[in-house]
Structures are given as C-alpha cells and as structure tokens.
C-alpha cells in the first residue's frame, strides 16, 4: 500500500461518498459551537424544521462576547447579551451540551475542547471559527467553517469539500532559551507568508515539534490559519496520549486501550509524499515580534523595522508603507525601541496553563512599567484560571501590576469591552495584528507570553532570551 501522510489517513477515514470532480462528503465527529457564528445556523434549522443529526457530537460555549470582569452581573451591552442568550436558548431547545458563563468549564472554545478531552486523535473537528486548526495538535483533522457550513454539519453531520494539498513543515533541533512555539509559528509565517499555506493542510514535524508540549503544539497549529492553511496537525506520540488520559470526554478502561492503540497509527508513513516541504532550523529562530498589520510582517526582537524602500515587489512595498503609517513606526528603527501602552496575555493561541506559567516566571517580583496603562492576563478557561490560582500565579501577576481576568476571547478581537483606543500600542499574545483587530486604530504587536510579560515590565520590547 502506498505510503500515506497523516492528512491522507484522516481524510480517507471520513469520506462518506465522492462526486465525479473529487468533491467529497466528509463525516464530522466533533462540532464545537460558539455564540457568534451559530445563531443564523440554528435559525436555519428551525425554519427548515430540522433537528441536529447527532446532537452528542456538539459542544457549545460562549467566548467571543463574554465580559472578563464582574461575571455575576448580566452582560451590560444589550447586543452582546442577546447573542449569548440566543446561544443559551438554542442549546436548550435543541439539547446541545453547553458550558454556560457561570460554569467553571466555560472558556475559549479552542481551549476547552482539548481540556475536556472532547478533541481526540483521528477525529474530524469543526467549528465556525478559523482557529479550529488548533485541535490538529492531537492528530485530528480540524478546520474552521462558515455559518452555512455550521448549519450543514448540524443538519447532516457532514461537509462537502475537496481534499487540499499536503505541506510538511519540518523544524529540527533545540529551541534557544526564551524561544517558544509562538516564535516557531511566527517564524514559519514569516518564511512562507500569510498565503503560503493557502490550499494546503500543514503537518508540523521534526524533533523540535516532538519536543513541544501539547500546549505548544496547540499554539503552533492554532496559527496554521495565519499561514493560510485551514488545518494544521501534529502526529500522535506519547505526549499526546499522556495529555488525554483521564480527561472527562476521553474514553476509559478497555475502550481507552483500544482507542490508544488506534491513535498510535496516526502519523505520516515513512516515505509519504507531500506536495510541499518547508524546513526550519530551530537554532536560528529568535523571539519574534510583528511590526506590521499582517502576521507575515515579523522580525526577530533584536532586528529592526524593515525599510519598504528596499522591497522590490510593488504590492509588498505599498503594503509595508501602509502598515508603517498605520503602526506609526519608522523604517530601520530597532524593535527594542518600540514602547507599548498595553499588554494582553490570552487568546486561543496563548492562554493555557503553560503560557501563564511562562509569563509569570518573567513577571515574578517585578512591576509593570509606568508607561504601560494596562497589562491584562485572561486565562483560556475557568479550569485554567483555577489551576493558575492553585499555583499562586494570580498573585504573581497582581503583585506585578497585571490585571487578572475571567476567561474569554477578550482583547484578541475586542468584541467585549476589552479593547485598544485609537493609537494605542499593544504587546499581544494573540494571533492577528490586522488593522483595527484589537480596537479601531489600535496597534498590535504579536509576541509570545514571555515576550509580552517582559515588554510589560520594561515598557518596550526586550529580548527575553537575553533577560534570562
């Protein structure tokens, strides 16, 4: 039999039927639902008199709109409140399992899926959210879908789609001190560009990836979409199996043994062919900082803001000029001289316990700089928050002058009250630095949790590998 990639295996295992042009009906195992992209889909079901095909495949949570302060009160923005209440009502009406705002298991959909063991190797996982690629860290085929497809999965448990091409991103070697999965993700995007992965599924492989924790692998797969790839994935190994054991939605007993034996087959075969292979040397990756308005506009922290005048491609040059103007930066200025106003540690990219521990290590015994108006830490879930509090991380942050918040998407996309004011500059552990993403006129620099914490303390970007 022909050697298969991990993507081939996951795809082939879920094809229900194929059209003549290769369009397949793909079966979906897990459907995660949140409040922003689901109301129109539930309404569609209702209008057509349909019920969810397999309601036990669905797990819902409100994350985008939820406030990160004063949870006991109702959401004061009536438009946000209606959206969250609509999710509550829809879940009740259709019998969907939901972790409500008052539930300790509530959190960012891409944090709680793995945390609950609701994301398992070999699954197809979808959600009306592009960062669904996160779940590929468990050797699942996981990707974001639009609302029409949310309704389609609800009604049929399937999606119509064509197989994408397969890309392998190989990272070999040991990461330097202070260099994290986030820096690897940004370095990959810097190398292949935000459209480099368009039309591909990316498998991350190599000794560096095998050395990452599940949290690190999730951070990496999370940002596959920022490289244009709908899905990112990592093969199963002992790290994967160990993480899943004993989680509430994971199998147990004899079923666990059977599942774990199957999961061990979820890797690319020796000699499997990829349509494209990209290689990076871990030793060459330094802590990364984005300088522009696209995640591909990224340099190492010891570098300088690039000079558009040196760019030969007219479209890229114009984009860089526009970005520098929006970001209010000068060409050739050292990254370490960029002073910040706010710090955001959180999002589906970097809000897991390991991220908070790493940031707390930097913040411990220090204090947020005077020019930083707000430094906030937003745990990815109620359970991450509880774990961090048991470890005393909340006190470390609070004593250092950070705000310790309730879980949610928060200032990653600023749908709730957490946002930048026009002109404010933020060191953020999130995933997108688009114009206006964190608030109209706000300026976002994407970094790792360590780099964000170090920037909060110094008031400007510093090379965390040198601080250590």
């Amino acid at each position, binding site marked *: 039999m022909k050697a298969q990639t991990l993507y081939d295996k996951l795809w082939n295992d879920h094809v229900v*039927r194929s*059209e*003549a*042009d290769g*369009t397949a*009906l793909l*079966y979906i195992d897990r459907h995660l639902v949140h409040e*922003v*992209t689901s109301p*129109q889909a539930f309404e569609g079901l209702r209008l057509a008199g349909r019920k969810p*095909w*397999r309601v*036990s495949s669905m797990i819902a949570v409100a994350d985008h*709109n939820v406030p990160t302060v004063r949870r006991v009160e109702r959401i004061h*923005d009536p*438009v*946000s409140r*209606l*959206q969250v209440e609509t999710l509550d009502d829809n879940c009740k009406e259709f019998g969907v399992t939901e972790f409500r705002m008052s539930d300790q298991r509530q959190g960012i959909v891409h944090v709680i899926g793995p945390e609950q063991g609701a994301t*398992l190797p070999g*699954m197809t996982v979808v959600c*009306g*959210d*592009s960062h669904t690629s996160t779940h590929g860290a468990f050797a699942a085929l996981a990707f*974001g*879908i*639009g609302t*029409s497809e949310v309704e*389609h999965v609800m*009604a*049929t*448990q*399937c999606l*119509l*789609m*064509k197989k*994408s091409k397969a890309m392998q991103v190989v990272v070999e070697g040991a990461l330097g001190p202070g260099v994290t999965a986030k820096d690897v993700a940004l370095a990959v995007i810097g190398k292949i560009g935000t*459209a480099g992965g*368009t*039309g591909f599924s990316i498998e991350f492989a190599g000794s560096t990836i095998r050395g990452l924790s599940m949290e690190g692998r999730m951070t990496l797969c999370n940002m596959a979409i920022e490289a*244009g*790839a*709908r899905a990112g994935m990592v093969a199963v190994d002992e790290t994967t199996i160990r993480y899943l054991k004993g989680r509430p*939605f994971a*199998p147990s007993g004899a079923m666990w043994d059977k*599942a774990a034996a*199957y999961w061990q087959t979820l890797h690319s075969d020796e000699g499997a062919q990829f349509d494209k292979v990209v290689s990076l040397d871990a030793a060459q990756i330094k802590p990364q900082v984005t300088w522009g308005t*696209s995640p591909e506009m990224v340099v190492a922290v010891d570098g300088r803001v690039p000079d558009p005048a040196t760019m030969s491609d007219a*479209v890229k040059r*114009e*984009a860089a000029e526009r970005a520098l103007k929006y970001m209010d930066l000068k060409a050739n200025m050292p990254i370490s001289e960029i002073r910040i106003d706010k710090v955001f540690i959180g999002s589906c990219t970097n809000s897991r316990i390991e991220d908070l521990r790493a940031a707390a290590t930097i913040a411990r015994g220090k204090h947020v700089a005077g020019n930083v108006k707000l430094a906030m830490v937003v745990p990815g879930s109620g359970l991450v928050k509880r774990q961090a509090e048991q470890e005393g991380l909340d006190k470390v942050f609070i004593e250092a002058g950070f705000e310790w918040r309730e879980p949610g998407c928060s200032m990653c*996309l*600023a*749908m709730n009250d957490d946002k930048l004011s026009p002109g404010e500059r933020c060191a953020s552990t999130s995933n*997108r630095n*688009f*114009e*206006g*993403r964190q608030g*109209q006129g706000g300026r976002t620099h994407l970094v790792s949790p360590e780099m964000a914490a170090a920037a909060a303390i110094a008031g400007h970007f510093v090379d965390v590998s040198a601080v250590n």
Partner: protein
Amino acid sequence: MKKFSVLNGLVAPLDRANVDTDAIIPKQFLKSIKRSGFGPNLFDEWRYLDHGEPGMDNSGRPLNPDFVLNQPRYQGAQILLARENFGCGSSREHAPWALDDYGFRVIIASSFADIFYNNCFKNGLLPIRLTAEQVDELFAEVVANPGYKLVVDLEQQTISAPNGKVYKFEVEAFRKHCLLNGLDDIGLTLQHVDEIKSYEEKHRSAQPWLFA
C-alpha cells in the same frame, strides 16, 4: 440560494493585498443574530470617518472621501476587483453576507483565503481567481475608464472586457453546478441519507469511543 449565470456589472477596484475579514466587516457587527443588513457596514473602518457601532443610523455618518467605494464613479458596482489573499483571517460568513448585501455578486482577485472562498459559494457570490498579471491589467483598465464594466459568464467560465479581451477562469464543476442552479447544499446532502447512515454505523463499530 440565489442563482448565478451571467452578470454585466460595473467594476470597483480595491487596490490592497491581504484584505482581511476584520476589514471587510469589523467585529462589532458580528454581534447580530441575523444574516442580513451588513451592507451599510461593509469596510466600515475604511469607509467612514467615525467609529461605527451596530444599530447606528449609517445614512448620516461622515464618509471617507478617499475610500474607493465612496467615489461617485463606482456607485452601483457589482464586481469587486482585488489583490492577493483576499478574505484572509477569520471564518466569519458575515464577510460574504456584507459584500452580498452591499450589492456585489463577483469578486476577482489573484488569490483568496480558503474559508472565505468557500463561504462565497454558499451565498451566491462568485469569487474568481485570475493571474496577478491579468489582475494588474484589469486594475489599469478600470482606473483609466470611468463606467468600466465586465461581463461574467459562469456557464462559459469567461470574463469579457470592453476592449474585446476574454479571460477564462477556473471553477470546480460541483460548485459551478450548485451556483448555476441555485442549489441548497443541505438539500443535496440529504439526498444521501442512507449513505451517511451506513458510513456512520461502520465508523461507530471501528471507533466506538467517538460515539460515547
């Protein structure tokens, strides 16, 4: 879903690469639980000089005169000409909803982000990929010729320009069939209920833990 066959439409040029879905429809408008009414907030942060919020009366808001869609010559445009990686970023279907609600039926670019591309077809919008050189050529033509229109023929997979030039484009056979006939995906898939059920049984016996 709306059918698409032939469109003879006015073209508006949006000369930026990597136009993301946050720019197409900013996040505050995603709080709506409806799928219509997003047109007035399409490109909100570029289009208006003030800050937009849901529920505002958009008719009195100050327009940004520099933004291309605010120029009189592009009023009524149904074809948007754009650059590479159009629609990158989030999966929000509110982006194609906003483009559709504004009046666009076709978007031409050298490349599209995968999720956005897919979402367009679910809403009767036709995204067309041309080469970067062809896109360059069209930008030059649109800017030089007020009232510039193109004829897009999905059946023939052609774009005809006023200068007589015809551009061929690719579209997957299945998507084309659905768009030409305005077919609803869910209805189509539910024609295969028996196959889905028999797959599901097989899948359940192979990996029972997925159905716990």
